């Protein structure tokens, strides 16, 4: 009984060490837990897989490096798929860090032979968040007269015939915030809008897909893993899924331990002041 009541008082440091081991081991020795594909990823994949070689897609980078672990795998998975099918990508940045993030993601493809200005470009960032988004969603060249490499955007071959959102085949944004700015500014412009979001923002964004204001959602690391599976390109996101599953199970196990200890202590006597209900 003493052991049971101590289950609720495990030191945080021991918890953290166990958690680290549980997360690390399946990344080194994958278990291969099957991953089902969710409806939002299927919807997004349906939109993106209908694109043809030569079509143009806008990638809007709106996350900071802090949120990158959850949303960057989505950007990587979608970028890999689109470049593989010779779809052109026009990058714009909702926030300042997006510029460097976009350059970092694009560099390997440039080294593999993709041509800047023809296959892809990075138009950069302009201050103003949603105000700026409203401007560049309607007129890219006017909002970005120069790209990040100093080229005049009016002369870039990839932007020929492209003024704003209605002239591209899809707009994919990646953010660690909410989807609302893109729903408000890009949604009404007659272009399929797909959002790559962190897991915590997903519940707020799901109604927009239900109402048709967003064409699809890719949610967190799980969304990236599902997209990798659908595109037959398993990568880092798929590799992390075993760790995610075991991490969830471990958390539930320790919650159960805590409750066992709580009920054992309660059966012994009055509750202490720290355990007042919320």
């Amino acid at each position: 009984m003493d052991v049971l009541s101590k289950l609720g008082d495990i030191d945080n440091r021991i918890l953290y060490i166990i958690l680290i081991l549980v997360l690390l081991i399946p990344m080194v020795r994958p278990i291969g837990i099957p991953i089902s594909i969710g409806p939002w990823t299927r919807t997004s994949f349906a939109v993106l897989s209908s694109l043809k070689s030569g079509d143009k897609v806008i990638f809007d980078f709106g996350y900071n490096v802090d949120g990158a672990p959850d949303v960057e795998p989505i950007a990587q998975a979608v970028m890999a798929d689109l470049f593989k099918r010779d779809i052109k990508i026009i990058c714009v940045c909702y926030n300042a860090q997006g510029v460097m993030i976009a350059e970092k993601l694009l560099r390997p493809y440039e080294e593999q032979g993709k041509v800047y200005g023809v296959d892809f470009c990075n138009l950069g960032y302009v201050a103003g968040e949603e105000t700026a988004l409203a401007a560049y969603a309607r007129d890219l060249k006017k909002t970005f007269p120069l790209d990040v490499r100093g080229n005049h955007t009016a002369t870039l071959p990839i932007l020929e015939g492209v003024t704003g959102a209605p002239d591209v085949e899809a707009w994919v944004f990646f953010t660690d915030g909410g989807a609302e700015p893109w729903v408000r500014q890009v949604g009404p412009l007659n272009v399929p809008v797909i959002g790559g979001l962190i897991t915590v923002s997903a519940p707020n964004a799901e109604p927009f897909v239900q109402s048709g204001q967003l064409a699809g959602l890719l949610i967190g690391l799980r969304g990236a893993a599902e997209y990798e599976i659908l595109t037959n390109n398993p990568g880092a996101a798929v590799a992390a899924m075993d760790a995610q599953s075991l991490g969830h199970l471990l958390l539930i196990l320790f919650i159960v331990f805590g409750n066992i200890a709580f009920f054992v202590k309660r059966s012994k006597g009055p509750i202490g002041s720290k355990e007042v209900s919320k």
Partner: protein
Amino acid sequence: MVSGRVSGFMALLIIFGTMMLGIERAKKQLPTIRKIAGLEAIDEAVGRATEMGKPIFCTPGWSDITTSTAAPTFAALDIIHHVARLAARFDTKLVVAIAYPNVFPLAEQVVRQAFVLEGKADVYEPGTVVFTSPEQYAYAAACLGIIQREKVTATVLVGHFASEAINFAEASAAVGAISIAGTESTTQLPFFTAACDYTMIGEELLAAGAYISQDPVRLGSINGQDYVKLFSFIWILIGSLLTTIGSVWMKDILTR
């Protein structure tokens, strides 16, 4: 009018009108607001800090005053003003951490004014309000460092937060501090509710200024807002019924 914004303008007029009505009624009879546990707990938190001789930590969240999350920041500054007045009254050390440069001069002014009102202008230290960084996790790291180094006895985490919320709540728990949180951010409310001692949910944070001041005009405007919520509830009910029977009238009205 700009197309697609007529219903928004109508809503704004209705909200403004009911607020003004609420204010007029409040001048005749002061409305009551139910107890908000988080705000009531501030006195207890300051008292505990005074007894133990340790500081109180406050932050108005990770938000600027030029974005859509400006309102919670202003509401948070109201609460920080109240905490600062109590801290000045009882000579308790206070640390206020600010993320955005725009908020920094306002916070300094708010805290300094609190000390002046308590007759303790000479006691106010320039290092009370600390600018950290607009970078989310640089701000979080700075706040965690302050909480852990200073071994604060109370943390007041009010305003708009992103994923650093759980870090602050746990850091408070780790040093044994009372944590009073409040946010309008629905993504962070679950973390605060689970990990903090007191949590102000959504509008409780935004009504804080009126609650603390008990000013009839501010209380009246809160009272007026309640009628707006009642109106919204009825509107949602009617809209749900109409949409269920296949009518698009409500959708047309709201998208005009």
